[in-house]
């Protein structure tokens, strides 16, 4: 089914989600995934939408803008290619990278650059400056040829140059400490953890 990525930004106000999803519904679309946040009083939403038949991206964007005219929306629509896109880091492991330190222009760019050099894929990121203090929390996938120890050492050295502290921890630590569901051990334990003790 033709799928489109719709992004909408505007000054935050009550009713924007209602307006955007209403337009998509009336156009015959079905939202299959959505992420929305408000950042410094600015609303932003990204939706993946399926339609039973192909849509003109400009027409769809214009409809969202027109029906939400009282919100002064900025809208972009792109079509998802039909061919399956291979994942950027196939079957990697998910880690949480936390960076703390003083705020400087270019912090995020430099961190992202370093991660990109090592083949680390960012899948979720939140960063903010509170006065002079900078914090960044991001979920990343590590490629198989990069150990967390290696990335930790690399980022610690890199962080020192910029006056930032970088911490890399496995997702399972946060799952274990924040969710009451049973503790799980990661996939790599089954790959590397075949029984080695003869019974």
């Amino acid at each position, binding site marked *: 089914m033709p799928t489109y990525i719709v992004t909408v930004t505007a000054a935050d106000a009550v009713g924007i989600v209602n307006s955007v999803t209403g337009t998509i519904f009336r156009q015959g679309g079905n939202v299959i995934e959505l992420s929305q946040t408000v950042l410094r009083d600015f609303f932003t939403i990204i939706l993946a939408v399926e339609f039973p038949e192909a849509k003109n991206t400009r027409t769809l964007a214009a409809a969202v803008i027109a029906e939400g005219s009282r919100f002064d929306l900025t809208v972009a629509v792109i079509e998802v290619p039909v061919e399956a896109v291979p994942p950027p880091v196939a079957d990697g492991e998910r880690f*949480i990278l*936390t960076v703390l330190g003083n705020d400087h222009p270019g912090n995020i760019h430099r961190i992202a650059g370093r991660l990109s050099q090592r083949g680390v894929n960012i899948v*979720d990121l*939140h960063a*903010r400056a509170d006065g002079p203090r900078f*914090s960044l*929390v991001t*979920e990343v996938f590590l490629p198989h040829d990069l*150990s*967390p*120890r290696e990335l*930790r050492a690399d980022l610690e050295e890199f962080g020192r140059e910029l006056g930032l502290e970088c*911490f*890399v*921890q*496995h997702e*399972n*630590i*946060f799952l*274990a*400490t*924040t969710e*009451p569901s049973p*503790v799980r*051990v*990661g996939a*790599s*334990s*089954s790959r*590397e*953890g*075949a*029984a*080695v*003790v*003869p*019974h």
Partner: protein
Amino acid sequence: MYRTEDVLSTLGMVRQHKLDVRTVTMGIDLLPCASPDLGTLQLRIRERLLRFAGRLRAVCEEVESRYGIPIVNRRIAVTPIARVAASQSAEGYLAVAKTLDEVAGEVGVDLVGGFTALVQKGWTDGDRRLISALPDVLSTTKRVCSSVNVGTTAAGINMDAILAIGHVLKQTAERTADHDGFGCAKLVVFANAPTDNPFMAGAFHGEGEADCAVNIGVSGPGVVKAAVEDLLTVNPKATLGEIAEEIKSTAFRVTRVGELIGREVASRLGVAFGIVDLSLAPTPQVGDSVGEILQAMGVVRLGAPGSTAALAMLNDAVKKGGSFASSSVGGLSGAFVAVSEDSALAEAVERGDLTLAKLEAMTAVCSVGLDMIAVPGDTDAETLAALIADEVSIGVINHKTTAVRVIPVPGKRAGDRAVFGGLFGEMVILPIHAASGSAAFVHHGGRIPAPLSSLRN
């Protein structure tokens, strides 16, 4: 996406408040090694330890790297050696201890526990020979830790064994006099000893355990203290109930980290995961102290009235949080008041605030007991035995584990300083009031009968 606050909170536990896995202790059953021939016994023990624990260190390092959580110690606990080497002479027991010591060094563990006898009701010839070998074992091996269970609620208290241990402590202290009697720090005398305790010196792989199991000792005095302080910063008027809730939720998180690491290590080694022991185990480092938690709760002078109540609340809240976190909680799972290992408790002793009598009272509401207590070197064996009997009786009557790790420091008196070094810390030697005043009681010997389990008031 995880909430930034949650991520920073978990990160803070590791980064600022010293959350670590204090020990990954591999319990190994050695009963299949038993043989009347000493050489065969030693060879079988060596082979079995290497077979199970050969990769322990490497796997712990892999898991440490994967999760970024320090694993401070890797240890081995074995079947009580009195069972495994029952037919050996005292010299044979010493030879077995040396085998354990050597193999522990080869596989990269710092301590091996289980040079143990369970003599709560009676003792065999083998038990006697093991106990008589202890001064040699504790003074000539580096890594071997010993424990003797002298009482249970079901069986009562073996006073003959306790008096024998009083003499063992004297001899061991003399043989390690150049290190302030440090050999005694590797001997724990238990009541109701748990079979799956991962913490040394009292770890052993007890009855009913599998061939091999990985048990975890987590520790987070710093984390709990920080949680209490943070709560009181935000809400200085927090009630004790609110403080208990904060401790409980912190214990939950600490326990979960321990279980995660334990399951991962066990999975990679292909052995069973046993339990996570969520004891708050202090180290001499400032900020890693059970005493400091009590101070954060408002007992500024440790040993003051209120210390026992605060410790009881802390111990209970830790157990509640841990029990919710995991169905595999075991071992001791409470707050340790190991005096020389806890800088705040050691300071309280030095100031004269914390006395032996108050410590004994505190051990009635927490785990484990009179732990890492330095006493005058001229304390006689009968007085040491009576001290042990008092503590053991608290455990036996109250259906709980208690233990004694007491060091009569040769050539030193009350008020002098005993220095054990490293994780064992240091402390000012505590006086024993009315010492030698109960020798006749101890010399009656025999068994104090098991207590009544009804009419419990």
